[in-house]
């Protein structure tokens, strides 16, 4: 019954279709023309919509991106808090202290693609002022200019291109709670001066630095280079100093560098002139999870400095530091250091130190440190004990 009804309905529809008027060719052509026009209009609208969408997305992306001003002006910083628990070898004193050793802010500004400013302002030991242990220090503030494709010049207050940690010393970039004593007591890191410098590239992987700048002022009664840092604070400028460095980095993971500095009078015109020459060389090698750092530094002063401290005309230091990263977060290191600020004396005045410890990177830029130090100095004056540190940079 249902089949019969269906056949009847189909039959009626076919009959109606047959009776409908078939359009003429002209009418068909007109229809096609109308449809073509409509398609063209729709295409145009689609194109317009695409342009609008593109413009909207671009605007959204621009707004969501870092604003232009802040792309030109950059901020960063680092900091490190230390805990030292040390005891002198002769048990006459201890050092049991916790200290926010360094709190540093970086500010930079890119004036153009080839002219930039960079600065580093530091608060040392948390609290500065009369009777307080800390200092507020301007460690870097210079203008840098890319003069040519292979030559960059800078002027202002900048870090000396000497050693491994003087220019790069964010706590997450080195092992050990405290910076190594060789670069601290011989070079002396962290060391900055005011003047002008150029950095050039001779060929890929071979570069040089030349700088003319303010010099050390080691006053009468003092003999260590570290005592001569004026920190560009109304510094005596009777005598300038000159520094040069050559650096080889053509092999990935390998850095070999040597620095040289000369100053004709570290007394800055007071009393007998004492000239000083520093030579420093180091190698830093990274291979897979293994890293090795080794450095040698030597100051040669005029014999006249011996009237202040016998044997101070030669001051030397070296360290070797192998390390191994067990994984991305955990690294082990050992460092053997030896330094002597009166190396030319007949008596034994060398200080040696063995450090072993770990760095644990909670994040690539956040590190916890733990190390044990065993220091030997003449007269049982060395300090042994443990150091704990927390450091960050951004």
């Amino acid at each position: 019954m249902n089949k019969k009804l269906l056949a009847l309905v189909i039959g009626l529809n076919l009959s109606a279709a047959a009776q409908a008027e078939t359009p003429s060719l002209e009418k068909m052509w007109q229809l096609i023309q109308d449809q073509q026009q409509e398609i063209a209009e729709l295409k145009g609208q689609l194109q317009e919509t695409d342009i609008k969408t593109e413009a909207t997305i671009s605007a959204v992306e621009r707004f969501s991106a870092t604003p232009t001003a802040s792309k030109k002006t950059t901020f960063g910083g680092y900091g490190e808090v230390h805990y030292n628990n040390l005891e002198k070898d002769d048990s006459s004193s201890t050092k049991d202290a916790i200290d926010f050793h360094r709190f540093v802010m970086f500010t930079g500004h890119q004036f153009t693609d080839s002219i930039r400013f960079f600065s580093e302002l530091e608060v040392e030991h948390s609290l500065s002022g009369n009777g307080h242990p800390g200092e507020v220090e301007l460690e870097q503030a210079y203008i840098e200019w890319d003069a040519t494709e292979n030559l960059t010049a800078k002027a202002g207050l900048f870090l000396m291109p000497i050693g491994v940690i003087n220019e790069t010393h964010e706590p997450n970039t080195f092992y050990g709670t405290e910076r190594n004593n060789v670069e601290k007591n011989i070079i002396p890191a962290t060391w900055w001066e005011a003047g002008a410098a150029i950095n050039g590239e001779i060929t890929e992987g071979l570069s040089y630095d030349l700088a003319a700048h303010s010099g050390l002022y080691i006053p009468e009664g003092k003999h260590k280079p570290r005592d001569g840092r004026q920190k560009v604070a109304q510094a005596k400028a009777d005598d300038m100093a000159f520094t040069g460095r050559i650096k080889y980095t053509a092999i990935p993971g390998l850095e070999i560098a040597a620095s040289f500095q000369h100053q004709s009078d570290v007394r800055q015109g007071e009393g007998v002139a004492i000239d000083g020459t520093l030579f420093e060389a180091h190698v830093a090698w990274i291979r897979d999870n293994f890293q090795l750092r080794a450095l040698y530094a030597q100051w040669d002063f005029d014999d006249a400095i011996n009237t202040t401290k016998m044997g101070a005309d030669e001051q030397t230091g070296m360290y070797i530091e192998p390390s191994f990263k067990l994984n991305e977060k955990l690294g082990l290191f050992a460092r053997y250091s030896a330094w002597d600020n009166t190396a030319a004396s007949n008596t034994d005045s060398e200080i040696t130190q063995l450090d072993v410890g770990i760095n644990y990177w909670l994040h690539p830029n956040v590190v916890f440190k733990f190390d044990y130090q065993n220091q030997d100095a003449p007269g049982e004056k060395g300090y042994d004990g443990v150091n704990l540190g927390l450091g960050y940079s951004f």
Partner: protein
Amino acid sequence: MGSVLLTSLTSPLVIAKGFFQSGPDFIAEVFQQQPNAKVLWLTDDIRENAKVILGRPVKGLRVRYHQFDLTTAWILEEIGKEMPITIGVVVTDNEIARVKILAYRESRGGEVRYSAYTKQYLGAALTDNNRLDQSIDGITGATLSVWAVNKVAALALYYHAQVTQSRDST
């Protein structure tokens, strides 16, 4: 510090110190035939993984790239210490075929642009947890620049996998 990862491939870079090659020149150098200019839309899923790779949220809505057959070329930016490094990465069949530093703006650490350094990335692929499967020897004093290149290389591999695994784009 965030950075914008979408770099126009149509705006040529000024060749000066620190600027080594423009985007269009890099693309022209990479492909013998005219590649297709495409866009990868950054879906929530892609954003989430890109965030893990970069260690920070990715900005922008999409990433432009070029493709011919199984090869894709990406021009991405990542900040080293302070300034963005512009990096060109070519990926063929889920392995890095080329890494080139197109612009380096930091004061120190420019050694990452040396061909001896960038050659280390050749053949690198992604591990299951979106890391490079090859060890890259770093540069003393330029740790942040090395990290930036590592992250961009891994990101390009990840993006490549997205566009060649039928998550198609236009």
